[in-house]
């Protein structure tokens, strides 16, 4: 099945760093498409639009927490409040080092991982492993 990776962050530098590292780490071997979102609302729009086409695909999201207008938490609440046809799985990618945020993230069903910024090769491998494990049903 086709896997798409959405990276959502209000910080463009952070987005750039994430995309570069993931590509260098060879994420493309697992993920067929990477989509970058500077505004969470655009990502939401895409999610709900994708509901209408029959394309069979798996959606993975790297999600920042502290964003203006729609925070990472708002985003998660929206996603979990509706019964999406598409399989959506989230890995938090945030600069927050607060234990409180980490625990809160764990309380969401759709959250599969929690990675703190900045990304490096090890963390990229961790993300790949989470995706592979999930796809293999581990």
């Amino acid at each position, binding site marked *: 099945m086709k896997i798409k990776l959405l990276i959502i962050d209000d*910080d463009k*530098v*952070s987005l*750039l*760093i*994430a995309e*570069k*590292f993931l590509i*260098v780490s060879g994420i493309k071997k697992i993920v067929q498409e990477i989509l970058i979102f500077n505004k969470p609302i655009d990502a939401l729009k895409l999610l709900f639009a994708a509901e209408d086409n029959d394309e069979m695909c798996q959606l993975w999201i790297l999600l920042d927490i*502290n964003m203006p207008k729609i925070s990472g938490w708002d985003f998660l609440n929206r996603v979990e409040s509706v019964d999406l046809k598409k399989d959506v799985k989230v890995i938090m990618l945030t*600069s*927050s*080092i*607060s234990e409180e945020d980490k625990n809160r993230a764990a309380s969401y069903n759709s959250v599969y991982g929690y990675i*703190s*910024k*900045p*990304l*490096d090769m090890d963390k990229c491998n961790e993300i790949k492993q989470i995706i592979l494990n999930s796809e293999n049903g581990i």
Partner: protein
Amino acid sequence: MSVQLSGIEAYHILDTEPSEQFDNLTQLALKICKADAAFVSFADNDRQWFKSKVGFDYSEVPLATSICKYLIDEKLPFLNIPDLSLDNTFKEYLAFVEYGVRFYVGFPLIAPDNSILGNFCVVGFEPQHLDEVQLEFLKTMADQTMILMESHRLNYELSIEAERLEKRRIVTDTAAVIGKLGGLYLDLSGNDIFWTPSNNVLFNLNRDYSMTFEEFETGVFGIDKSASLVFHRIREFSNSQTASNSKFSFDFATDDRMIEVHCELIEKELYVVFQDVTVENELREQLQMREMEAVQTANTYKSLVNNSTFYICKAGIDGRLTFCNDFYAAELGVDSLETSWDRLDFFHSVTPAYLDYAKEVFFKVASGREAKCRILLKETNRDQVEVSNLWDFIGLKNSQNEVSEVLCLGYDVSELEDNRVQVQLLADYTAFQNKKLLEYNSIVSHDIRSHVANAVGLISLMDLISDEEEQQNYFRLLKKEIRKTDRTIIALDKLTSLTSVFENGKEPVSLYYLIEQVFELLRKTKPHARFSSVNNIPVDLIIFSIREYLENVFLNVFANSLKLVSPDRELQIEIEASQITNSILQIKIEDNGIGIDMKQYGDELFKIQRPLKDTQYGNGIGLYLVKKQIEALGGRVDIQSENGNGTTINLEFLNYED
């Protein structure tokens, strides 16, 4: 005495044995009168009973047909019948017809009340005439019989009385033993002594012992030596007394008992009473102990009740006071001259603002809806100072299980309350600071960290990527991130200073009216404070600031002045304000109090919990808050004071002239 007997019954002679004394009389009469029979008889209902008889054997005969009955019925002085056969009346009588009696002479036996009890008679079987001497003799015999009768009666009564006396003696002796009483009587002139047997019990003597007069007279007693000591003392007393009447008492202790001895000499008679008071002494001692304990307990309670820490009072269910301790009377009571007690109720001292609340809670307890309640009340004491008292109301029930009174226990928590208010202020301030700190923390953890994370990420990318153009791009971005970090840090500094926070709450405030309001508030909340105020602030001066904070600042500044009142003069607070530059408004507050020793306290003035002067002036937090609040408003504070000569406080606020 039992029922008074009359007639023959009173003599208790009927059916008694024959008596020699009576028989002597009848035998003598028989001989003197040469008669065949003589007798003494008594009439008893329907029989004639013979106490004494000579010449026949009947002990009694029917009364109805006897000659004696005739004698009695006719109340004759005597009856002399020389020959019954010649007498028309008596020749029909049984005496003649049945027994052949021919001669009869009888004299009545007359009791002192003139009633006739019976008669003294002689009879013969031959006719006979008695001469004068013989008749006189028979009369004498009848009189003599009556003397014997009286004697018999007295003997009988005496024997009865003796019996009664013996019973009484036994009862008395027994009672004396049981009652632990003893007695001794001495007739010193008649050498007579009376010894109460119960003495033997009291002094552990032989139960048959009885003291003789000789023993007492010689002082040689046939009893145990220790017991004889008491009689020696009695002897000494009786010998030493020359006065005719005197008394003497002493206590005598034996091994196991205490005996009180009371002697009384009346003329030549000595009365001595012994009383065993062992138990009474023990009881008295116990009673004294109890009494002492009771007095101690009472004193303890009294000192508790009249302590100088707690108010204790009782009120009826209408709130009227029925009792109060000294402390209450001294602190909250009113002069008894001004108000009579029965008009004083619990609420008289409660300040108006707390009155409804106090009544609601009190009557909750008085009505029995609550067993007890605790309540904090503001009250005005006798010195017209407002104090905070913590009260417990407790319902007291009567025997019908209804609340009849309310016990009120209270103590003064004014100082605690003052501290609580100040601590609350500090807590509010601390909470505010804490909130700022949390915001600071959140900014540090997110904003700065996200920049640093980006910088670290970019540096890692520069290692990873070899393309020079791309590397330069990352370097450019890196510089940007570092600049952003710097800006964030500058913004943080702004955030942590209080000033910026208050920009939103600012409003134009008329300083003159604000100060007037504060003075009014001060006079209301501290009605006992005596001070005058001079407000020299221009009426049209407007300061752009936060009203609540300004009020607080001036309340604290003025309260500080009130704490430093000079005993020599009434406090005067003077305030003026002027715009010293385009942006700075200076407010000057002067008082004529005792001032502050700046050398000693100057550095400490604005620190928390540095009490100024004595502890009674509070904990010094007031000026600390003033400084913080003024700084929060973007101003500064400056104090000048000469010890003993008042204090001047200069406040400077940022205030832009339009």
